């Protein structure tokens, strides 16, 4: 089933969807994501924040700025309209300072999610085997620690269950210190949804959901990245 959002981005000649677009595409596929909308200016940001409910998170929305948190492009835990306004100003100033040439669409606004266990689920296309899904404990260290598991699409239910349990850090998902056991069924469901998504959307070549926050009941993707075929 074609996605209008993807088609529009391709029409613009873009290969990477914005966070807002990526989450909308995933929401269409039934994957739980934090509701995220684009605000073109500070007033719109406040309107959206009022609608979504505080506290909120603001992030710069500009193709050229990829590691947003590294460059002052992310503002967390904004408790009210004043905080949103101040944060918006800081984000725009930072964007202007670090990437003055960047075309900035605005900022994305989403509710601040409760703390949970961070996992990463992703998809890539292997030259030999086609679409492959990945699961691991998330966070900034994932590319260093490489504690991840892969399965080739299409997944069977038991593949989703096994790949989660295969990672070395699995005991964290079983409940560790203050964190309750994670809702593994919710994570398995996301894996199965992405398996179908990969088959339905050959135009998507790479996908990261990082982090997904896993709770005792449910899981939600807080950030998403989708890369399209050139």
């Amino acid at each position, binding site marked *: 089933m074609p996605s209008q959002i993807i088609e529009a981005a391709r029409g613009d000649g873009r290969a990477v969807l914005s966070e807002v677009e990526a989450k909308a595409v995933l929401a269409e596929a039934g994957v739980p994501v934090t509701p995220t909308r684009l605000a073109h200016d500070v007033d719109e940001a406040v309107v959206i924040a009022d609608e979504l409910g505080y506290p909120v998170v603001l992030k710069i929305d500009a193709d050229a700025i990829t590691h947003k948190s590294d460059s002052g492009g992310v503002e967390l835990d904004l408790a009210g309209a004043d905080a949103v306004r101040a944060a918006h100003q800081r984000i725009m100033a930072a964007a202007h300072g670090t990437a003055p040439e960047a075309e900035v669409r605005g900022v994305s606004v989403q509710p601040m999610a409760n703390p949970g266990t961070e996992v990463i689920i992703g*998809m890539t296309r*292997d030259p030999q085997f086609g679409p492959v899904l990945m699961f691991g404990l998330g966070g900034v260290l994932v590319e260093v620690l490489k504690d991840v598991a*892969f399965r*080739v699409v299409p997944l069977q239910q038991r593949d989703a269950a096994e790949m989660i349990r295969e990672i070395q850090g699995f005991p964290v998902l079983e409940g560790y210190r203050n964190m309750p056991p994670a809702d593994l069924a919710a994570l398995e469901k996301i894996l199965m949804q992405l398996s179908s998504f990969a088959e339905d959307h050959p135009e998507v070549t*790479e996908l990261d959901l990082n982090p997904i926050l896993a709770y005792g009941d449910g899981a939600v993707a807080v950030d998403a990245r989708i890369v399209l075929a050139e």
Partner: protein
Amino acid sequence: MSDLYANLQRALNPSTIAVVGDKQSLGFMWLNSLKTFTGHLYSVQVDEREIAGIEALGVANYASLAEIPERLDYVICSVPRQIAPHIVKDCIASGVGGVTLFTSGFAETGEPEAIALQDQIESLARGAGLALIGPNCLGLHIPKLGVRFNVDQPHGMAGSVGFVSQSGTHGMNFSLTGAANGVYCSKLVSFGNGVVLEAADYLDYFVEDDETAVIGLYIEGVRDGPRFARTLRSVAARKPVVIWKGGQTAAGTRATRSHTASLAADQAIWESLVRQAGAVSVDHLDEMIDVIKAVLFTKPAQGQRVGLMAMTGGQSVALTDAFAKAGWEVPRLSDESYAKLGEFFNVIGGSFQNPLDMAGTIREDPTNLDRLLDIMNRDPNIDAVAMEISATFAAHRWERKPQELEQLLDSLQRFGKRSMKPLVVVLHPAHVESLALGARMKLQARNIATFPSFGRAANALTKAQIARSAAH
């Protein structure tokens, strides 16, 4: 069934074979290897300088395949690559089932003319449904029919391992080293460049082949990845599959824009695929043979708890460490077992816990070994048994009193018949290796799964479990 598949079946069960282009400078390698063939063997060679040597081997020589008076099931083509397309055409015209192109120098060279030549023979073969094996390979080894590509390969008997190899050397070494370990092939295919038939095709063949109980595969890469993934999954669900993936891919330099793509290294994907399919991975030839040996010669364990039996305290510790490391639980035995052990076990210089440190107990009375094995068989806490027999201490004694070794072997064989639990034996090569070798040969002759180290025994048993668990 497609023509191609029917023709492959003919080639793998041949009554007639022809070798094209064998020569003195190769030592008539093909004709000599095929002396053991149970069917009719022919030669095609137009070079007059070679014909006398061929006829001296007692093989009828012809100027072309067309002139051979019988329909040919299998042909081996050993001609220079420019001539290969002509031979392929001749095979098609003569109704040959399958042809191995030993000839190399095709796409593996990377040269455009060579690739074109390979494409040509591929389309010829595909168009006619000719089961073309290779090019650049050694082809088929069928011990039961005496079909060989090396004079040291076994013949006149049938094994139950179907081995598929992308490399000729590894195929050869599997058949030879396997045989030295009591592991024999039903059929073996060295498939080289695999232009018409590749790994998935041979997996499809072996899963249906009644002569094959376990499948081994040496692979470096596949052309149709999704088909291979599907095939592997369905085959591993029916028969145990052991995979040795060779060739570390050069680190990719393709640009990636996600964590997932950056982490998805070729080897990681392969290992995941093997796991996903229910097959098991090994890293080298010895491990391939070890795991297949365990699949063939042990019964499946119903759980992960192992009972350990060793001749000395030091060996007990080493045995325990190796099995624990390979994922086995080494539990306490049942109270009933301990009560029985207490009645006869010699605890001076020995002990029983799990592991059993038993040399003194057995030396007192060799029938105690049967008692110990019986206790292990009956103990509800134990799913598998591993025993080390210290050739280091016993080698000379077995030389002087061979009946001691025979008694030991009889006890092990009795256990194998009575018990549903797997048994593995560890026999280290001793300082007098020839004596240890003799002992090993005797164990093998009785189909007792024997390994030269604790680690290899433990690993083999673990991986055999994995390979078997997907296959019902």
